């Protein structure tokens, strides 16, 4: 790609010099090859030094240059990505063959920042970039999972194995108690919601920049306190002709880990029932003939996945386009879980005249989705029910049909979860259109005025049915439909002026204005009374049971400024300011002001370091500034009366919220110190330290019910701190012509501390979540009773009192702060890639450490009496206290489990996120086809291996409780990429 950029530039430059002068001279000819593979190089520029006389090599790497008017000249050979060479020539030279050596470090890599792009190594902010290669072929619906472990400071947790659900993001710690903690996502200049990640084909993404510190994010002002993730879609890059790329992938998904299944099988269950005296009326001869592993019944171990993508791109000096279409189809591993997407994209940019450029980035997607029920401990939903169903209840009959309650073939208590799911289908459809158009005018040199308009529209529908023939419906079915439309319009105007003063001082000013207007409306209708399975829709019902609708809107208006200064590529300074108004606050408090300052010292360019060979680059960065957060419900500042009260079929009104017109922005002040350096042209190291303080936190502050009838209200209160360090290293261990071995690793540590709560209160128990906010502690620390095990003498459960004494009583006052939180302080990843000729092997690992999760599933499975009618953990059978002297952690039967810290588990993990083995066919072979320009096949495994001490099915949990969660899946895929 980079080669092609240069080609483009060269073509433009060399048009004129190709004219011949009618003077006598001499010719120099030769052949240019790459030192790496001895292949001829096309398009290498050869220029006579000090003149405009030059040529480029032809398709076989040959060139002929005529030199006139001088006896000896110097030829400069240059090619992007290669070290330039200079050779003296004279009339005697005749033939000059050249081998060009690659130099990765010489490439001017471009980094996408807020409202623009910058050359890598010229920015003062902390920015990490993830390139297309990491995402193009991920076997997932969205790009989100592929970011895990790639960027220091960014926590990405795929909280659900549902193919259509997005991962949960967090950057540099938790910055708020109740307001949003997810970064702001910007796609091609328009903000998008994480719910839309699955509408964007990962193959259409060119790069993702993660903006972390104040200097890079403050220009996004009010929404930037949790960091900003800037996503850029692909544009045309192929020069000589349009490039067509086809990507296809086929594979299967299965459970990422199934060795954690701990519930009893039939013999164990029967023995357990006998031991606890639940055997009345049981025919064990009959029951022992059935032994079902519900995990295998509910989860598919070869759910198919297929993905196809076709794209065309081209760049000329006037027009630049990228057009793609894709189809992605993935079955989830759980029942009734699937995702299918049809998507297309057209990105184009036209240089209409030498002062006007117009363009668009437009994508459309249509999705068909079904999602498995998860997260609630229900007996009738498959994921949750699989843990509760007894092993001698078979969901299927001998002939393979569903065991049904209708005909009595289902022998279990309650519903057969698989039958329930089949009789209560829900299907979703989503239509997405995201389009931006822009115009860029250059009225005078160095001044660019850009206007961009974006429309982000989505329409989602759901259709749910419950069939009348299903016996529990009593021949009265249900149907429901919902529809929602969301339109978010955004408009951005920027003026950018570049200005240089006698080569030493250069300035870049940006002035901008932005507006966002979001509106959504939706409704849902449910009816009941259908009595025909094939006519179960809204109309066939006999009465409506619910008909909620909702409309909401918010808007932002912003003005911003950025000034950049650079002295001789040595000192860089940046100042940015933004003012934002949000409709979520009252008129007197809606404007917020945010600013940042950044400095960068490019020490390598100082005279005293210039000659040190081993130090390839060295930079020191400093930044400070503020950004805001207003992620609260849209209307909560208003005192409102609602009308959905209904008594005796008469509608009434009631005060629904008391509002707070004083409500305003939450503000985070962030400071960053960073050092980055390159050694021996091989190794790059980047270290960042940061300290952030959030004040005026938006919190649902508890208040007496006696005041307004509700238990809390939004207010700006208190303060919180996040402090941490991030280190990223990457380097080529071996770099030879045929063999490259690259290693990269990153690690980050974050410490979160609550500094102040509301009204001088020092602590607040967060109701039933097992959490407590205490000043001086992490805001996500667990507050629990400490379990002390079992008294070997009598099998009683023991706990520690708050003072550390043993007690047999489970008391509220013995709860203590555990020092364990569900925000992982340590997050990291590492990867390696080996390349030998066309063969490459790459592995990407990600890990999190010191993260704790309440395993609620285990509370049900080890209930020790509360849920004995349903299946229980094998541990209850084998490990519970049975006779005096038994040393164990499960009390005697009947001493029921409590939600104490015995279920608080360390969910740290190390995961082999992706392993890819690929083979790229050599150019020599492809040339013979006279058609293909590149071809690659690969085998890929996603979530191949997981190491964790967590006893649940999957350690990736984004919240404080692990309960009936859809576990992550593992994918094996085979893929091909070809282009011509």
């Amino acid at each position: 790609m980079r080669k092609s950029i240069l080609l483009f530039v060269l073509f433009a430059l060399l048009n004129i010099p190709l004219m011949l002068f009618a003077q006598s001279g001499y010719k120099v000819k030769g052949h240019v090859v790459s030192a790496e593979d001895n292949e001829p190089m096309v398009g290498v520029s050869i220029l006579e030094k000090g003149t405009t006389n030059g040529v480029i090599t032809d398709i076989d790497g040959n060139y002929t240059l005529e030199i006139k008017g001088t006896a000896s000249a110097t030829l400069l050979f240059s090619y992007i990505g290669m070290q330039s060479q200079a050779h003296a020539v004279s009339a005697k030279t005749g033939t000059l063959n050249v081998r060009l050596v690659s130099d990765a470090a010489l490439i001017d890599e471009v980094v996408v920042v807020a409202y623009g792009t910058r050359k890598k190594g010229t920015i003062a902010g902390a920015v990490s970039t993830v390139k297309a290669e990491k995402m193009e072929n991920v076997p997932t619906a969205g790009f989100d999972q592929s970011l895990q472990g790639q960027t220091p400071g960014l926590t990405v947790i795929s909280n659900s194995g549902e193919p259509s659900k997005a991962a949960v993001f967090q950057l540099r710690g938790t910055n708020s108690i109740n307001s949003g903690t997810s970064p702001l996502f910007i796609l091609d200049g328009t903000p998008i919601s994480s719910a839309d990640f699955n509408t964007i084909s990962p193959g259409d993404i060119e790069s993702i920049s993660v903006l972390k510190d104040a200097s890079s994010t403050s220009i996004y002002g009010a929404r930037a306190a949790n960091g900003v993730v800037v996503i850029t879609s692909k544009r045309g890059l192929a020069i000589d002709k349009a490039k067509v790329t086809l990507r296809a992938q086929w594979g299967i998904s299965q459970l990422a880990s199934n060795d954690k299944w701990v519930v009893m099988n039939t013999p164990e269950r029967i023995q357990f029932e006998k031991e606890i005296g639940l055997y009345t009326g049981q025919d064990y001869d009959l029951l022992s003939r059935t032994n079902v592993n519900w995990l295998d019944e509910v989860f598919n171990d070869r759910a198919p996945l297929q993905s196809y993508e076709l794209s065309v791109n081209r760049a000329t000096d006037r027009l630049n386009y990228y057009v793609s279409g894709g189809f992605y189809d993935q079955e989830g591993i759980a029942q009734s879980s699937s995702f299918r997407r049809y998507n297309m994209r057209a990105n184009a940019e036209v240089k209409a005249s030498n002062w006007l450029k117009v363009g668009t980035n437009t994508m459309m997607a249509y999705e068909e989705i079904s999602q498995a029920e998860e997260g609630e401990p229900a007996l009738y939903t498959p994921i949750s029910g699989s843990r509760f169903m007894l092993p001698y209840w078979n969901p299927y009959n001998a002939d393979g049909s569903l065991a049904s309650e209708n005909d009595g073939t289902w022998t279990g208590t309650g519903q057969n979860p698989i039958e329930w799911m089949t009789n209560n289908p829900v299907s979703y459809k989503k239509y997405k259109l995201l389009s931006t158009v822009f115009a860029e005018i250059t009225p005078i040199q160095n001044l660019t005025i850009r206007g961009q308009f974006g429309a982000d529209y989505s329409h989602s529908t759901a259709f749910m049915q419950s069939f009348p023939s299903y016996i529990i419906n009593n021949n009265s079915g249900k149907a429901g439909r919902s529809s929602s439309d969301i339109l978010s319009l955004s408009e951005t105007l920027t003026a950018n002026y570049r200005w240089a003063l006698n080569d030493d001082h250069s300035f870049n000013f940006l002035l901008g204005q932005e507006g966002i207007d979001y509106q959504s409306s939706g409704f849902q209708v449910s009816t009941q009374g259908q009595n025909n399975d094939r006519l179960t829709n809204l109309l066939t019902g006999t009465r409506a049971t619910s008909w909620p609708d909702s409309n909401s809107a918010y808007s932002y208006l912003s003005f911003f400024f950025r000034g950049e200064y650079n002295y001789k590529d040595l000192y860089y300074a940046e100042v940015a300011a933004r003012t934002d108004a949000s409709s979520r606050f009252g008129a007197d408090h809606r404007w917020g002001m945010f600013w940042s300052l950044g400095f960068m010292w490019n020490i390598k360019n100082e005279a005293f370091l210039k000659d040190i060979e081993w130090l390839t680059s060295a930079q020191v960065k400093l930044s400070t500034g503020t950004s805001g957060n207003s992620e609260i419900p849209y209307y909560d500042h208003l005192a409102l009366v609602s009308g959905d009260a209904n008594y005796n079929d008469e509608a009434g009104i009631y005060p629904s919220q008391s509002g707070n017109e004083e409500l305003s922005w939450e503000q985070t002040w962030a400071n960053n110190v960073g050092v980055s350096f390159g050694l021996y042209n091989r190794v790059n190291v980047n270290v960042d330290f940061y300290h952030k303080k959030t004040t005026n936190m938006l919190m649902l502050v508890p208040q007496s019910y006696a005041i307004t009838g509700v238990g809390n209200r939004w207010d700006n209160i208190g303060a919180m701190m996040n402090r941490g360090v991030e280190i990223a290293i990457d380097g080529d261990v071996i770099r030879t012509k045929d063999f490259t071995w690259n290693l990269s690793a990153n690690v980050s540590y974050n410490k979160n501390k609550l500094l102040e709560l509301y009204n001088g209160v020092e602590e607040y128990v967060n109701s039933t979540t097992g959490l407590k906010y205490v000043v001086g502690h992490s805001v996500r620390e667990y507050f629990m009773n400490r379990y002390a095990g079992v008294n070997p003498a009598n099998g009683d459960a023991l706990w520690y009192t708050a003072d550390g004494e043993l007690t047999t009583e489970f008391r509220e006052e013995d709860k203590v702060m555990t020092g364990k939180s569900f925000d992982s302080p340590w997050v990291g990843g590492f990867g390696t890639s080996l390349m030998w000729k066309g063969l490459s092997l790459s592995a990407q690992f990600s890990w999190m450490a010191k993260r704790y999760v309440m395993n609620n599933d285990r509370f049900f499975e080890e209930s020790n009496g509360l849920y004995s009618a349903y299946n229980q953990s094998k541990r209850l059978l084998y490990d519970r206290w049975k006779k005096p002297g038994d040393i164990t952690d499960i009390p005697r039967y009947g001493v029921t489990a409590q939600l104490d810290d015995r279920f608080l588990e360390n969910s740290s993990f190390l995961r082999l996120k992706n392993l890819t083995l690929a083979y790229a066919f050599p150019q020599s072979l492809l040339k013979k086809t006279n058609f293909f320009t590149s071809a690659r096949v690969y085998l890929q495994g996603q979530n191949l291996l997981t190491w964790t001490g967590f006893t649940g099915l999957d350690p990736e949990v984004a919240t404080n409780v692990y309960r009936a969660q859809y576990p992550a899946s593992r994918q094996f895929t085979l893929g091909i990429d070809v282009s011509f």
Partner: protein
Amino acid sequence: MIKKFKLYILLAAMAFSAASCLDKMPEDGIPFDESIQTVDDVNLAVIGIYDAFKSSALYSGNLTILPDLQADLVYGVNGNTNTFGDIWRWKDILATNTSIEAVYAGLYNVINCCNFMLDRVDRVRNNTTDDKDLDKLDQCCGEAYFARAIAYSELVKMFCKAYESDEDAANQLV
């Protein structure tokens, strides 16, 4: 220069039009001050009070069922999924119990609905001249006073400490 000038005008126009877009109101809510203006509005608020009593935490739920459970008017069976298990076992009732909190919240919600109406009824009464309407307002107020009283009496019953003498009771109710 003219171009710049035009840009400023454009910016200003945009800023102005966008600023008015910053006042967003939901379609399913009306501001407090505009909600009760007529006798009919007062009546609607009374219906809202009755609706508040329909809360599943009050007479059709927790308020009546929790004491029954505690009084052992139920049988605990195998197969129960621990619904209300904490209440039935007595000893597991914690300060953070949400079933009990919901009763407290539900009753105060009734009181809040009553106060909301009673705080605004005088303004309506001052603008009302028709005798029938005034009678209607009295009727509405009466219902609201009664609703509030019954909610308070339940609160006293449920959440005040036991007392033995009148003086004792006065202290507990503070």
